[in-house]
């Protein structure tokens, strides 16, 4: 188990993963907060009704639509983009773990991690 010339130990990987998670949550919270400011300035006086389920419009459902709305400076789009960043945080963690297992040459777990990553990507982008 001694890897003299490698600093890719489980401990150092865990440190990086911890920082990655923290950064992702902080970043998405900041984006959501920014969007919230914009959204409340425009719609703060109206009371939203969530009793009846309508479903979101198409542009707030797909990744490219959300990014387009956020870039257009729409409050709801920016909030949704922040939520998308939050959903992407665990995905980024799994992607990093895949990279780390490749560096450790732990092929069993490279396979396991690849399965988890593809399931996550199917959920977010796939034909479901």
């Amino acid at each position: 188990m001694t890897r003299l010339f490698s600093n890719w130990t489980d401990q150092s990987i865990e440190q990086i993963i911890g920082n990655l998670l923290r950064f992702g949550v902080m970043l998405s919270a900041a984006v959501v907060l920014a969007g919230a400011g914009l959204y409340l300035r425009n719609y703060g006086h109206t009371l939203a009704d969530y009793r009846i389920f309508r479903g979101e419009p198409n542009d707030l459902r797909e990744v490219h639509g959300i990014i387009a709305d956020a870039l257009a400076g729409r409050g709801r789009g920016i909030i949704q983009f922040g939520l998308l960043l939050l959903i992407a945080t665990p995905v980024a963690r799994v992607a990093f773990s895949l990279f780390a297992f490749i560096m450790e040459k732990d092929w069993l777990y490279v396979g396991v991690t690849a399965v988890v990553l593809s399931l996550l990507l199917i959920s977010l982008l796939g034909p479901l």
Partner: protein
Amino acid sequence: MGSFVAGFLGSLTGLGGGVVLVPLLTLVFKVDIRYAVGASLVSVIATSSGAAAAYVKEGFSNIRIGMFLEVATTIGALVGAFLATKVPTAGIAIIFGAVLLYSAYLSARPPAEKLGQQPDRLGTLLRMNGSYPTDHGPQPYFVHRVPAGFGLMFGAGTLSGLLGIGSGAVKVLAMDQAMRIPFKVSTTTSNFMIGVTAAASAGIYLRRGYIDPGLSMPVMLGVLAGSLLGAKTLVKAKTHSLRLIFSAVIVALGIEMIYHGLTSAM
């Protein structure tokens, strides 16, 4: 405000904000349960990632166990999110109530630690055995009954995807009781897995239009602020009496949810 309380309570008791959040939104604020589940999933990712960041650094969570079991939870999460589009909302409410009652029962029961002393073939083959820090240096442990744990994890993932909860209780049950992983390791590893599981179903919820920015925004920010505060007070608070109070709240919410589901079905 309600989501702030939910996040605070959730992180205090380790049950996760979702179990309080969804009943609160549906029963008190009369939000459609699909919107509530969508908002809850988002907040579950936020709290679990925030907490996992701290735990991972302390070296308690086992990344290999987590990653292997995430195969089961993410498949379950996709199944659960798919089921959520098929099951009528009244059915979701009733299942939610039943899960609440069960998790209250689990958290009220003191956890019995059963540690395996001998290595298990499959656990060793999958390189899951590890060690965790104690006062007297690293303590090694062995992982058992991987298939049973894997099966339970699939169930945990399905519940998470259907109900928008972390299902930490089922995850801890799988690791602690079935696989005989030390309590501290199983709780922190379960927390670590919750974010990935919730992300798997949140992707589908987002694309089905179940995640509303106007509703998710206060919920996410509130839960995050609440969990930050909860983690700080946890050290001082008497967890035992808190757990009892929380169990009582969960039982009441569970009965309310079942009642709500039954009446709205008629």
